[in-house]
């Protein structure tokens, strides 16, 4: 068709970054194709959404009233520079927080801006997602999370990951594993399309993952299925671990987790006995518990216990060819001043992810501890991520200055002094790192709507307006893209010629057993079943170096008669991604929101009715929703997806119900009751 252009764009709605064939006509996205989920399918309603911010705007009158007037980019940069520099002058650079939500592509650039300004407080949404899983891994192995070498694995243990709904495009990979005869063990409280295709489904109570993993270790140890020579040579703290594991025979683990003791034995034997075996973890479900880091450490220890670390088909750091590049994970956070979260969660900083920990942001603003916070420069800042979001929304009012860069006019934008329009992935480029040392380019398919700009150009604009120094960013957007690619031997121009992807000219071949020569980057130089870094804080913070199991049901001060049900929020649904897709008409129409999903036996027990309104109450708050029955849910558990402005499950979470190590809220196991609402 004349005038019809095909562009290759990466979906930016969730981090899976699926490739979308985008057909452009007359400068507009006319149609899209690709192996996508429902969110990606709704891309055109995402881009051309009526809530898109089109121009820079400034708040007129009192914060929160939602009245804004259009200003120019020049005026916006001028106001931002004046206010941020004033605040630095009066209160110090640490009083300004730089925050990155979704997507993630500009994060190193924002960290550079924060560093150049002199603030230690670069934070991201990873304060409640993923980084606790990475922390748990680093405390044990010393490196970045190692994913399973799926191409060669013989048994795959999928720990709390319903990939059909969280990463639908991964369906092909999963089905190929099944076709190859790979045995699958799935751990999940729910029955899901993923657990249905597994050979063994360990259906545990949410939050009891640690007890389950320790009991699998019990079976592996007592039946001598472990890799003795690997453990003797490369594991630190094995004796203490072995002693501790003996507290978790399957009979006891059955009482704690609800999983049949015979099934625990069967799964342990399969994982340890039919190797090579890999564990596919997930970014957040396990760490969204008050014992999340330790629960994940217990899971991760199984990899070393069975000798499945850095071996073909196991969990490996370098199972695929890779090509080096700059920026991602390589920019260090300025740490010359104490950051927020540092006193509360010291291990977050000792095992640095180069971010501050802002899980208690509302407290830090309201209580001015450890020091006053006065400014927030947010990119996609949404208060709905945190427990008790309305409390944070109130706290934002107290800031002297808040600028939010966003795609949509979110509720958080109402609290901003300045809002700036960001471009969607269809309206800008993005360099994508692909497996196998390949880089591809997400092409700019259409011009940005209104005066929207790409995030990195906005960051560079702020940097220049404040006259801050950063040798890399000062070169401008294109030079920055070239800088990212430089170590690979590629350039932005080369990718523009071949957007589908190019293999780096510099490539590092797959490597296994590199620990034999390089050791482990832990204090002991070994895999730490007893983490020396956690042990540092035994006295001050009560941490244990062992993967200690603390049952959330023993948390004191909760009246279980009043709150008999366990609340589990945020388990993925295919059409939602946090708060952002409720505004998309196609997706919002798929089901009622907010659904309170329960087992039919509980619906009967508590006198509720399918489809009727009900109120969920926890010790921290309440919300209204609609009852939905599902046999996929265990009795005693209530599942609610978060982020809906008309009934937000995060209001139910106590702001202090956190994992003391990571600061992650216990989103997946809190307490509640559900009562039917009188019908009008």
């Amino acid at each position, binding site marked *: 068709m004349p005038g019809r252009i095909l562009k290759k764009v990466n979906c930016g709605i969730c981090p899976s970054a699926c490739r979308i064939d985008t057909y452009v006509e007359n400068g507009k996205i006319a149609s899209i194709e*690709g192996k*996508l989920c*429902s969110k990606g399918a709704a891309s055109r309603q995402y881009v051309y959404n009526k809530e898109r911010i089109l121009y820079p705007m400034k708040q007129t009158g009192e914060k929160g009233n939602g009245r804004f007037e259009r200003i120019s980019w020049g005026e916006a940069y001028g106001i931002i520079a004046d206010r941020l520099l004033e605040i630095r002058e009066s209160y110090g650079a640490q009083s300004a927080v730089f925050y990155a939500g979704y997507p993630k592509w500009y994060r190193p650039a924002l960290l550079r801006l924060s560093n150049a300004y002199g603030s230690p407080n670069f934070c991201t949404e990873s304060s409640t997602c993923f980084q606790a899983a990475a922390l748990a891994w680093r405390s044990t192995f010393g490196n970045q999370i190692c994913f399973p070498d799926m191409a060669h694995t013989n048994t795959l243990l999928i720990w709390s990951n319903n990939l059909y709904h969280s990463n*639908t495009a991964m369906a092909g990979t999963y089905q190929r594993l099944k076709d190859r005869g790979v045995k699958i063990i799935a751990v999940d409280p729910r*029955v899901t*399309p993923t657990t249905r295709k597994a050979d063994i489904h360990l259906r545990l109570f949410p939050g009891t993952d640690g007890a389950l993993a320790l009991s699998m270790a019990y079976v592996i140890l007592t039946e001598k299925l472990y890799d003795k020579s690997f453990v003797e040579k490369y594991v630190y703290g094995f004796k203490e671990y072995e002693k501790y594991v003996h507290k978790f025979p399957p009979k006891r683990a059955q009482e704690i987790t609800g999983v049949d003791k015979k099934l625990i034995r069967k799964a342990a034997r399969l994982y340890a006995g039919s190797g090579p075996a890999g564990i596919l973890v997930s970014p957040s479900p396990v760490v969204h518990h008050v014992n999340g880091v330790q629960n994940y450490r217990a899971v991760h220890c199984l990899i070393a216990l069975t000798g499945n670390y850095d071996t073909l088909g196991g969990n490996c750091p370098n199972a695929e060819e890779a090509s080096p590049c700059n920026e991602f994970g390589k920019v260090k956070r300025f740490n010359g001043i104490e950051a927020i979260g540092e006193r509360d969660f010291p291990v977050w900083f000792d095992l640095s992810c180069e971010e501050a920990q802002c899980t208690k942001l509302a407290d830090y603003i309201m209580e001015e501890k450890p020091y006053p916070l006065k400014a927030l420069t947010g990119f996609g800042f949404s208060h709905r991520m945190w427990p008790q979001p309305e409390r944070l929304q109130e706290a934002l009012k107290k800031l002297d200055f808040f600028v939010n860069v966003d795609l949509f006019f979110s509720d958080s934008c109402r609290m901003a002094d300045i809002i700036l329009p960001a471009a969607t992935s269809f309206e800008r480029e993005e360099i994508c790192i692909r497996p196998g040392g390949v880089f591809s380019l997400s092409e700019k398919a259409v011009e940005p709507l209104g005066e929207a700009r790409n995030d990195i150009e906005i960051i560079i604009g702020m940097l220049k307006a404040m006259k801050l120094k950063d040798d890399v960013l000062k070169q401008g957007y294109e030079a920055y893209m070239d800088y990212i690619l430089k170590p690979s031997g590629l350039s932005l121009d080369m990718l523009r010629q071949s957007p589908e992807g190019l293999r780096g000219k510099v490539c590092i071949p797959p490597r296994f057993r590199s620990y034999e020569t390089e050791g482990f980057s832990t204090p002991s130089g070994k895999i730490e079943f007893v983490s020396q870094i956690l042990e540092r804080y035994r006295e001050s913070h009560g941490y244990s170096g062992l993967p200690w199991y603390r049952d959330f049901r023993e948390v004191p001060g909760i009246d279980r008669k009043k709150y008999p049900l366990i609340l589990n929020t945020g388990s993925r649904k*295919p059409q939602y991604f946090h708060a952002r897709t409720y505004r998309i008409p196609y997706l919002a129409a798929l089901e009622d929101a907010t659904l309170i999903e329960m087992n039919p036996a509980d619906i009967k027990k508590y006198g509720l009715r399918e489809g009727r309104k009900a109120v969920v109450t926890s010790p921290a708050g309440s919300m209204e929703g609609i009852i939905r029955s599902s*046999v996929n849910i265990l009795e005693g558990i209530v599942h609610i997806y978060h982020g809906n402005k008309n009934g937000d499950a995060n209001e139910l979470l106590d702001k202090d119900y956190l994992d003391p190590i990571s600061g992650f809220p216990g989103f997946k196991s809190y307490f509640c009751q559900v009562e039917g609402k009188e019908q009008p």
Partner: protein
Amino acid sequence: MRNYYIGFDKEKCVGCYACYVICQDAHSDIYEENTNSFRTICRVAEKGYEKNICPGCIHCGRCMEVCPRQAVYREEAGFILVEQEKCIGCKRCESVCPVKVIYFGKNGKMEKCDGCIERIRKGRKPACVEICCTGAVYLENKQ
């Protein structure tokens, strides 16, 4: 003459809604409110498990058989299509549809899956087939 069939394997369907949504994207103006997908969402249950699935038109032709005005016809590739000018909105077709995927638009005229016939003529696949990650929605060419 070719004979196409859009198949649906409910075992493979994981209820991701991608086909349901892309059908609307392919057939409606994105700014239009309350659009219909030509696929449907239904809940299927077996012991201890339930899921939503999104079946679509199987082009069986029952709607064509009951139409009093011959508004529904089978085109040469095998798809059942509607000539809206002839439709009187009697809804007999709706009552016999085994998958419940016949809709009536604001003009009162019958609407249904057109097999993305225009896309097929250009060598592309129907939108629902193209997007499906699990192979639950597939295109068969009987010849």
